[in-house]
């Protein structure tokens, strides 16, 4: 998922009687599916965990611009280039909605970005894989955004109001991402044999990393119980993974592509696909910073931050100068911005 291994500071879920009185009141609000808003009382661990989760989600969107950005200048048609530009711009927007949601918990966006650049903050493992061909842009839209939607739709109902509201906006836009990806794959699969082979190669490389986006299996996911109790995670990693596989396999069949899993088989009794062994060693290697592109991704983000410094400084200088000139944009003419009662 766009968030993986989020630490809740709880080794195990405490029973109701182990909670303090304010914690019990808080839990009762969550159990009644009430939304928690920024000014409300909340346990410190809930607040800190949400900051970790939302900022990790934001960082994923932020770094997530890079793999696809790699192909903007080489898109095969003007239409595809416009679509890809719009998608990558959306990812930047999603990061901004999420950083704003995190800020309502009392942390500054700049602090979060510094943590990312210092290598102390996580982002999704998926963005540490390279985009080697144009078909990768299709595979990412179809599978990576598809996996993201699967997790984000339930999060529209999560307990923290600003996070849930950001998710509503994001989900509306994410659906475009997934469809443009599948549409790109369709075009390749209906094209020349070489194009179809390119699509198959992309599926071969992206399938397992996409399946691993949902995070480790439930038995190695010690924070799931607490996150579920807090209603900041609504389904377990394995539940979402199974749903993703069940939905994606028929989509691959339609494309005429083969999912790279020899053990993949429809199970009539369970009503789900059985699948093979997931390469978890690879997942943990990538999460711990040693994937194919980890260093490159962070270097690119740091360079962009430093390269944009003069723009931020110029904007600040301009604001100071104009404020001095006319005191305050708003104070001079209340109606001038089209503001009317």
């Amino acid at each position, binding site marked *: 998922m766009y968030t993986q291994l989020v630490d809740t500071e709880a080794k195990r879920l405490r029973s109701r009687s182990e909670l303090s009185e304010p914690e019990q009141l808080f839990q009762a609000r969550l159990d009644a599916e009430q939304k928690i*808003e920024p*000014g*409300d*009382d909340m346990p410190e661990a809930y607040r800190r965990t949400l900051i970790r989760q939302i900022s990790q989600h934001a960082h994923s969107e932020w770094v997530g611009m890079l793999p696809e950005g790699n192909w903007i200048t080489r898109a095969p048609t003007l239409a595809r280039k416009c679509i890809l530009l*719009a998608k990558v*711009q*959306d990812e930047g*927007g999603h990061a*901004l*909605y999420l950083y*704003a949601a995190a*800020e309502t918990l009392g942390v*500054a*966006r*700049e602090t979060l970005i510094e943590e990312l650049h210092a290598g102390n903050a996580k982002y999704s493992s998926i963005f540490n894989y390279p985009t080697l061909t144009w078909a990768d842009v299709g595979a990412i839209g179809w599978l990576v955004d598809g996996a993201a939607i699967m997790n984000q739709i339930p999060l529209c109902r999560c307990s923290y109001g600003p996070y849930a*509201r*950001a998710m509503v*906006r994001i989900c509306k*836009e994410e659906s475009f991402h997934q469809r443009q990806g599948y549409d790109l794959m369709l075009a390749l699969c209906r094209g020349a044999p070489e194009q179809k082979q390119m699509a198959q190669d992309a599926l071969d490389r992206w399938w397992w990393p996409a399946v691993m986006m949902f995070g480790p299996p439930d038995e190695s996911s010690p924070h799931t119980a607490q996150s579920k109790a807090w209603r900041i995670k609504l389904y377990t990693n394995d539940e979402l993974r199974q749903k993703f596989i069940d939905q994606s396999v028929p989509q691959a069949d339609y494309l005429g592509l083969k999912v790279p899993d020899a053990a993949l088989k429809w199970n009539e009794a369970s009503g789900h696909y059985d699948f093979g062994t997931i390469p978890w060693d690879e997942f943990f290697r990538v999460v711990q910073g040693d994937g194919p592109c980890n260093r490159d991704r962070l270097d690119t983000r740091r360079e962009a931050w430093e390269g944009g410094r003069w723009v*931020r400084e110029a*904007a*600040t200088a*301009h*604001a*100071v100068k*104009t*404020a001095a000139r006319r005191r305050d*944009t*708003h104070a001079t003419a209340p109606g001038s*911005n*089209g*503001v009317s009662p």
Partner: protein
Amino acid sequence: MNDWPLWEVFIRSQHGLAHKHVGSLHAPDGEMALRNARDIYTRRGEGSSIWVVRSTDILASSPDEKEALFSPSISKVYRHPTFFPMPDEVKHL
């Protein structure tokens, strides 16, 4: 960037409804806040007008006052038209 104030963004959709809060952003001044709001919150024709307001200029009711402020209205069901059953024979009411 920490020096940049936080702005709350309100958008009026095409349908003549009131401006609605959509989110927030950082910008050095009101003009940049409007430009950024346009890029961040109206990429799909969501709006026909944008307001930006410094977050610090918004005075909000406190969550602690929720009970005192809002519970008195809950019991006043007669404020809703559906409180008054109308005979089926009577039209246009």
